[in-house]
């Protein structure tokens, strides 16, 4: 198993044991531009990702 990050229609896989912020940076996702949720609850940047986690990323940027 691994950790899955989902942002819009894209999926990323990362190794468990990493902090969320590092997992984001590793996939070129700017941490400041997303909010992460797991099982519907928000998690913070320093959260350590565990095996089997599914993290849903919500884009925060809006505007035209």
């Amino acid at each position: 198993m691994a950790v899955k990050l989902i942002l819009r229609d894209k999926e990323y896989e990362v190794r468990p044991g990493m902090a969320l912020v590092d997992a984001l940076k590793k996939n070129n996702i700017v941490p400041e531009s997303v909010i992460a949720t797991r099982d519907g609850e928000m998690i913070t940047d320093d959260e350590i990702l565990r095996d089997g986690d599914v993290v849903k990323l919500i884009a925060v940027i809006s505007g035209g």
Partner: protein
Amino acid sequence: MRQHKLALCKEHYLEWIPEQTERFIKKYEMFTREEKILVAVSGGKDSLSLWDILVRLGYQADGLYLGLGIDGGINYSNESRRLAEKFAKENNLKLHVVDIEKEYGQPIPVMAQISHRGYGKPCAVCGLAKRHEMNRIARDLGYDVLATGHNLDDEAAVLFGNTLNWVSEYLLRQGPVLPASADGLARKVKPLCRFYEREMTAYAIARGIEYIYEECPFAEGSQSILYKETLNQLETVRPGAKLIFYLNFLEARKSGNLFIEKNMEMQKMHPCPKCGQPTSAPDFCSFCRMIEKMKAEITSSD
């Protein structure tokens, strides 16, 4: 840093946001509990959260939704209107709805095509119509204040654009409050202008506010999104950069030090007694002082 606020437990976070909003409303003298406020509601996270916060704080705030007639394959306007109306109904609030097409005969994208404004994108026409209609409704229905949900990232992005192009007339007007004009335009305020966009998203989610997640299809590739992304990269390596950029701008303008010419005149320069170059330091210029200090250190360590 500020980011740690997101680590507050949900209950405290949901209290912290309105407390801070109240502080900003007072600090910038936006409005009082006696005044009637019209909140421009788009169905997005910021405007719905703003409405929610103002009502929680006990302000008299009604909503205004403008139907732009934008579909873009995602039914954008209808869906955002549905969410705005749902929020109003669930919270027992008054929402005025103005449909541009009903009022003026054409939806925004068609209006933009016919009027040939804005280089293929309806945003110029859309912005113009939104401003006009917000002012009109506020005046006709007797509101004292018009409140919009602009957050720190919106303001920093606008400031970034205005600074890249040095448009001084906009720089002089941008701020948390735009006073009422003599000819009857309502005061405009931005109570969320010091919250990060990320903080506002967290608030909407934690409050369970159902907002429109999809962008207006015309926002794709817009300049403001490019500026926001750029500033977020900066923020990631220099936490606090966006807030400093915005607050120091407000401070510099208030103190009258924003424009350089003026600043140069005010500073008294005199020649450095050692090298003769002009300096504003009281005695030797900074370079000569550095050299002196270095020499002194070398001799003392000998």
